[in-house]
């Protein structure tokens, strides 16, 4: 029997005007897998991620997530997105709401929970990211690391089947990175399927099941972290990893 992938992207192309950003990318992700996507800036990693929940419209190709055809016009995209969590580089918390308000908004408006239900679920989610005591703070009163953890809580409260992380720690001061990675690690232990675009190579090395190296709009190679980091097959991969490790 063929293994059922929870994320199945095939032949993704993306043009921005004259720019050809994705040139036919295939990506399959198994349930409970943590896939790490690395590559130089401008290689199309973030665009690929954003094609998976259709924040970007792929120019061509197909995306199926948890059995739902994301590009089918008949698909209720809002309902589908509820099952795909996304964490952004710049957090994108709603500045006019408290941490709790940030988490409950989609629970109430999309998942249709009552205010009381949403509150309970949101507090649970905030507890999972270690911020139960910050529920009533506004984003402006939180550190960057805390803001990002609230953003993660905003996603996991909806009980997504897949989580997308778009450079979740790039905007953080070095001393705040650890707390966010810690939350990601604990999420991983619950068996969450995760696709992570990031430069945190240490985290990739000891937490990822698979590392995908992208360059110039294509997946150049992929494999277990040890193989990619210690023994890359391609020259470009080797050059990139060499550069990263020199830091």
């Amino acid at each position, binding site marked *: 029997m063929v293994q059922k992938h929870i994320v199945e992207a095939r032949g993704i192309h993306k043009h921005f005007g004259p720019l050809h950003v994705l040139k036919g990318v295939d990506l399959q992700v198994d349930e409970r897998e943590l896939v790490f996507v690395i590559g130089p800036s401008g290689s199309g990693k973030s665009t690929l991620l954003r094609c998976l929940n259709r924040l970007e419209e792929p120019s061509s190709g197909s995306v199926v997530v948890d059995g739902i055809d994301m590009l089918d016009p008949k698909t209720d995209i809002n309902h589908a997105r509820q099952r795909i969590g996304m964490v952004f580089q710049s957090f994108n918390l709603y500045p006019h709401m408290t941490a709790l308000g940030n988490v409950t908004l*989609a629970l109430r408006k999309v998942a249709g929970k009552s205010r009381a239900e949403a509150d309970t679920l949101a507090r649970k989610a905030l507890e999972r990211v270690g911020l139960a005591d910050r529920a009533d703070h506004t984003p402006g009163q939180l550190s960057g690391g805390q803001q990002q953890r609230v953003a993660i809580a905003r996603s996991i409260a909806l009980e997504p089947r897949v989580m997308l992380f778009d450079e979740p720690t790039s905007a953080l001061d070095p001393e705040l990175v650890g707390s966010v990675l810690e939350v990601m690690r604990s999420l991983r232990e619950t068996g969450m399927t995760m696709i992570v675009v990031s430069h945190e190579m240490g985290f990739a090395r000891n937490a990822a099941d698979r590392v995908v190296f992208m360059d110039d709009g294509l997946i150049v190679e992929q494999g277990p972290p040890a193989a990619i980091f210690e023994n890359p097959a391609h020259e470009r991969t080797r050059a990139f990893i060499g550069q990263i490790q020199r830091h």
Partner: protein
Amino acid sequence: MGGWDRFVETFFNAKVMAKYLPDILSGMVVTIELALLIVVTGLGAGLALALLRSLGIRPLNWLIIFIVDLFRSLPPLVIIVLMYFGLPYAGPSPSGFVSTWLSLALVLMAFSEEIFWAGITSIPRGQWEASRSTGLSYGQTLFNVILPQAFRLTIPPLTNRTIAITKGTALGTVVAVTEILGQASSAVSNSYNPSPLMMGAAAYIVLFFPVVVAARWIETKFAWKR
């Protein structure tokens, strides 16, 4: 009789003032009615246009931009005169009250659309993306995430503009609206005494000064974010 007494006798004549006080008061009622109508309909229409514009339908947006530009370019008095003296040639003859109301509401609509729109577009894309990624629809995102933030930014420019346009109710006097200035002017020509005009001036201060002071307060209160 000294110069001061004569001055008071002329400009603050108690008898004249007592006689025309009811007129000025009824003028105040008309001014308030007119002002409220202008604010409610003007801001409502401005917000509606800004929301329409956010849908991003090209030809529609060009039309909206043209209408906004038109009513920002034309002096309000010209619009009022055009409506009151010009429109009857084409059939409908709006009263002075209706002409003033519609004209100033259109002007406020134009200015407020511009401000609302600037507020909406100033919210970073990430806010849209975060909200849409959790499954909120376009409309839900607009009303729950974008507009509350946009309103905060737009309140100071909006209050100032609203006050400036609402003061334009005095223009109604040109098309025979019996608001404060209209009442005061006709009282002056009936009594050959400027005291009603002074009362009228006082009436405007009573109405608008608190609003201006409140606007100043709002401006500092909403400026914390900078």
